[in-house]
């Protein structure tokens, strides 16, 4: 039991570090990192960096070389992630395309389509989004209503998607639709990719409780999609979707925001009821809980990396990580605000101010407990897929989709 690389892993790590050292700037401290002044600016910088990665052979590590990837092993991806986190490099914007759309295209697109679309995805020249969730298809992901009708070899799509990250700057999107409302829920779906500049597509930002807008609603009005852009057979859309759904739940992962370290350091400098907060046993008690949770998640991750390193399939760490870290974040955020007593309510946009970090966590945790699978859905998944417990009773089982009760919301 050790934390050391195998010789192969050590070589890979060295190679990655050296390339990064020659092409990027090391972070100066744990709080240092890349930030863009605006979304446009960030997008520009990400594209430049991605091109550099691609030219250096470090783009899309898990992709085949023929499409611009490196054919790395899972453990190499982990090592790359560890090394890259030491540097101030641009990030974001491309993950959904490269992580979800890319694999689906590789599996279901024609050779010509792969040659056309995958290389610009790997270089960052073209950006992709994922058009899955709908107002009535959240936890119940297969409850998709967006209608696709075939006439000749052209499909006409009408409906609405929600929670689409990056729809407003994406060039293409992968899309699930309902092509047969009279078939059972999981049977009548059909999967496409679509040009986001197609006539009839309208993108509207969704304002979140924090006031930010990281997601969009996407409206489809008589959008035409050639049948050649269908991925998988007609009616097989659910099967195609499954390729990406688990990836999405994995992707949400760990919470960003204040964690044990921040709460600990706050408590060491903060007065509470006449003494330092760290001397308050109730604070120590909570800190100990959070440390144990954080430590448990960290070492669960190490166990998973070890499994990858041995070529084994990793465990259900990501569901656990999301449940535990989202709830921990909500507790820590409230703790931090409470520590500041009546002043905890004050908003400050000062860089690094205590309040703003905890206030960010206050909003973010509420979203994180929902995004990419609610606490409740993830506990269903753990109990069913990990522990092998039976599904709940299904009211929609075997019913034609258009006869499934839908209520009023």
């Amino acid at each position, binding site marked *: 039991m050790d934390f050391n690389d195998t010789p192969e892993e050590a070589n890979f790590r060295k190679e990655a570090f050296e390339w990064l050292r020659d092409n990027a700037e090391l972070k100066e401290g744990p709080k240092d990192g890349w930030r863009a002044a605006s979304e446009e600016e960030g997008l520009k910088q990400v594209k430049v960096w991605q091109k550099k990665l691609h030219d250096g052979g470090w783009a899309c590590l898990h992709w085949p070389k023929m499409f611009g990837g490196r054919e790395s092993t899972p453990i190499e991806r982990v090592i790359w992630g560890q090394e890259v986190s030491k540097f101030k490099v641009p990030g974001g914007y491309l993950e959904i395309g490269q992580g979800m759309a890319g694999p689906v295209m590789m599996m279901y697109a024609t050779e010509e389509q792969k040659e056309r679309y995958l290389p610009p995805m790997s270089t960052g020249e073209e950006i992709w989004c994922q058009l899955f969730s709908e107002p009535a298809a959240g936890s119940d992901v297969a409850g998709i209503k967006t209608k696709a009708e075939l006439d000749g070899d052209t499909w006409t799509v009408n409906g609405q998607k929600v929670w689409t990250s990056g729809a407003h700057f994406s060039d293409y999107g992968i899309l699930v639709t309902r092509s047969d409302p009279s078939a059972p829920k999981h049977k009548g779906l059909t999967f496409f990719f679509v040009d986001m500049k197609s006539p009839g597509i309208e993108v509207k930002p969704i304002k979140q409780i924090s006031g930010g807008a990281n997601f969009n609603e996407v409206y489809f009005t008589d959008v035409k999609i050639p049948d050649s852009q269908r991925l998988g057979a007609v009616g097989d859309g659910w099967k195609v979707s499954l390729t990406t759904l688990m990836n999405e739940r994995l992707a949400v992962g760990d919470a960003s925001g204040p964690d044990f370290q921040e709460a600990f350091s706050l408590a060491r400098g903060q007065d509470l009821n006449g003494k330092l907060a760290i001397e308050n046993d109730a604070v120590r008690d909570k800190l100990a809980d959070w440390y144990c949770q954080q430590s448990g998640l960290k070492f669960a991750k190490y166990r998973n990396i070890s499994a990858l390193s041995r070529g084994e399939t990793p465990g259900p760490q990501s569901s656990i990580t999301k449940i535990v870290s989202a709830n921990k974040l909500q507790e820590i955020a409230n703790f931090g605000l409470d520590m500041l007593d009546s002043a905890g309510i004050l908003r400050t946009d000062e860089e690094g101010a205590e309040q703003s970090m905890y206030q960010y966590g206050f909003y973010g945790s509420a979203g994180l407990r929902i*995004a990419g699978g609610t606490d409740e859905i993830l506990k269903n998944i753990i109990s069913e897929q990990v522990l092998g417990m039976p599904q709940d009773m299904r009211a929609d089982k075997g019913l034609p989709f258009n006869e499934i009760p839908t209520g009023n919301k």
Partner: protein
Amino acid sequence: MNFEFSADQMQLKDIARKFLEKEESVKRARNVLEGEASYDEDLWSKIIEMGFTATSIPEEYGGLGLGYLELCVIAEELGRSLAPTPFSSSVYLASEAVINFGDDSTKQVYLPALAAGEKIGAFAHTESNTSPTESNIECSFSDGSLSGTKIAVVDGDIAGFYIVTAKNDSSVGLYLVDASSDGVSITAQPTLDPSRSHAAITFSQAKATELKSDWSDVLNLLDRAAVLFSFEQLGGAEACMDMAKEYAMGRYAFGRSIASFQAIKHKLADMFIAVELARSNCYYGAWALSTDAPELPTAAATCRVSASQAYHECSKENIQTHGGMGFTWEFDCHLYYRRCRQLAANIGSQAIWKDKLISSLERANQI
């Protein structure tokens, strides 16, 4: 045993509820949150017309001379409807300070104006990122004037006068300062809950009136206010529970109402339990406040802790029950999530009130 509000009080509650519903108080809270105004002046003037600000001010000073039980039921409805007005600052804190610690001439000047809504008062207590105590308060009073800075003063930018905690030679007590006095400077402070305004106030040799009070009176003022704030929190908590239930009943997934899933049902049952415990403790607080019982410190801390917990639980799990929609600006869930924090911060954090509760039980040496 008659541990319940009277029929008249329940009728007043019903009137308050219907009035605030009709006035679309929640929508007004959203407007204040999204707009530039510090509060909803129109709603405030209607609340004054209803006589709510005069409720517990003695008749001899232009009030209605009703008891605190009447004020409790109004507070619950204001909390339920997120009313974006300076009611809590002006009524639970400023009016109470003047009623309990002002001399007759101060009462003559301020109480009729408070009752009639001509003056808004605010409570200026916090000075830093930690709970104010008898020993850490820096604002000071001497020779009739007051100096120092207070932050996070709720309604500080709209108040006509402040009740300020400050030290003189020997102890910390309450002082009254007019906002229009020389030496008072006011800076609005943005917060997590922009439906309620906050400000930093700096006093530079500002003329101040001494209220006959020491630190124990400051604590007493906070205890009295805590009961009323608890009713606001209770109303907010119950509103969240009702919203969550209503949404769950109508939202279908997997072919059935999500209200039929045990995960949601048990979540709602937990909210209901929290609300019922908080309500019962709030009644205890109301009884203690209205009878000036020696148990007030215990009762106030108990209902404050219990109602804060219930609101916290209900406001966050209301978002969770709504799923993605609960995380949108468009839905009202976040208005309650924010207000829950605002009310939790307003008169000091949970850690302080829990400690006060146990301290009061230690003093009582009994339960």
